[in-house]
């Protein structure tokens, strides 16, 4: 009986440790993925001459930042996630959507006037 109790306790500590460990590792992993997404998006934003691809790249960077914020807010095992970064992300998503819409409308207008939505390298317009 005592032996069994001890084994259950050992198992419980093990599970506890694993969930704690997992929570920290997983949120760290998500945060790092967010950073990588930010880098990928920034690279494309600078390199790609096509406006729509630039807008897409900007959105990928934004998604990286949101992922980072959400992950970092929930790092502490056994504690509720920090609501402030979550509220920031909620605000950020809405602003990102509206900014994307305006950017796309501008790109459409440029396409209409210039015939292409691609920025050219050397031609002064």
């Amino acid at each position, binding site marked *: 009986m005592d032996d069994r109790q001890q084994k259950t306790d050992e198992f419980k500590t093990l599970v506890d440790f694993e969930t704690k460990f997992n929570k920290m590792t997983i949120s760290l992993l998500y945060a790092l993925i967010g950073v990588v997404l930010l880098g990928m998006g920034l690279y494309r934003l600078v390199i790609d001459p096509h406006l729509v691809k630039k807008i897409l790249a900007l959105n990928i960077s934004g998604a990286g930042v949101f992922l980072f914020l959400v992950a970092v807010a929930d790092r502490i095992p056994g504690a509720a996630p920090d609501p402030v970064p*979550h509220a920031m992300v909620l605000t950020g998503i809405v602003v990102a959507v509206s*900014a994307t819409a305006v950017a796309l409308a501008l790109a459409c207008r440029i396409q209409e006037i210039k015939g292409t939505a691609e920025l050219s*390298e050397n031609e002064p317009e």
Partner: protein
Amino acid sequence: MQNSNNLKKVHRAQHVSLTRKALTALSVMALTVILGWTVWTLPPFSDRMPDLVAAHLSISGVENPVTAVLLNFRGYDTLLEIGVLLLAAVGVLSLAPTSVLSAETAPAQVQILLLRLLPFIVIVGAYLLWIGKYAPGGAFQAGAVLAAGGVLLVTSVVRFNHITIKSVPIGLSIGLLTFLAVALATMIAGGNFLQYPLPWASALILVIEAAATISIAVILTILFIGRKPDG
């Protein structure tokens, strides 16, 4: 003529790109590594913000900490955010394409989907708005769901009547106007800008969120179609 132009373009692009690509890749990689290292070495504790929010949750008028931050503690952010949304809608409308794309025949599937889904969309939207007080949900989630219904409406062959078209500007601005009205009312009542009196906090937040939901739904639909809906 066009072909040679294109070739020239491609050649030029390749020529310019190499050094530029390398430079960009290097600087972006440096930034990523610095940021990644910072994340890796972040201390395993947080500042006092979660405790502050938890300590003041009882005077916020709601029980969901995220809603408390959005509508009460940092209400100013949300007010400006709805302003940004309205600004975006005005910007998109003023850039509306000169040649109007006419959706003469929407596929029958869209109409069937619309008929089946619209009641549920409205119910889910209202539910999300109400539950925001206690659990994840609120004006933005509800507005996004309702906007999905709006997108379905405008992509099917529904023709809006005159009154609906006339009320689009009201729908666009009602969220910001209600928010501002409440903010000014709290000032007149003797408090600060957006400082809700405690017994009224819950009701005021719900009123603001309901108005914001309508605005967000209308604005997101307008952002999707990029012009005024057809009458």
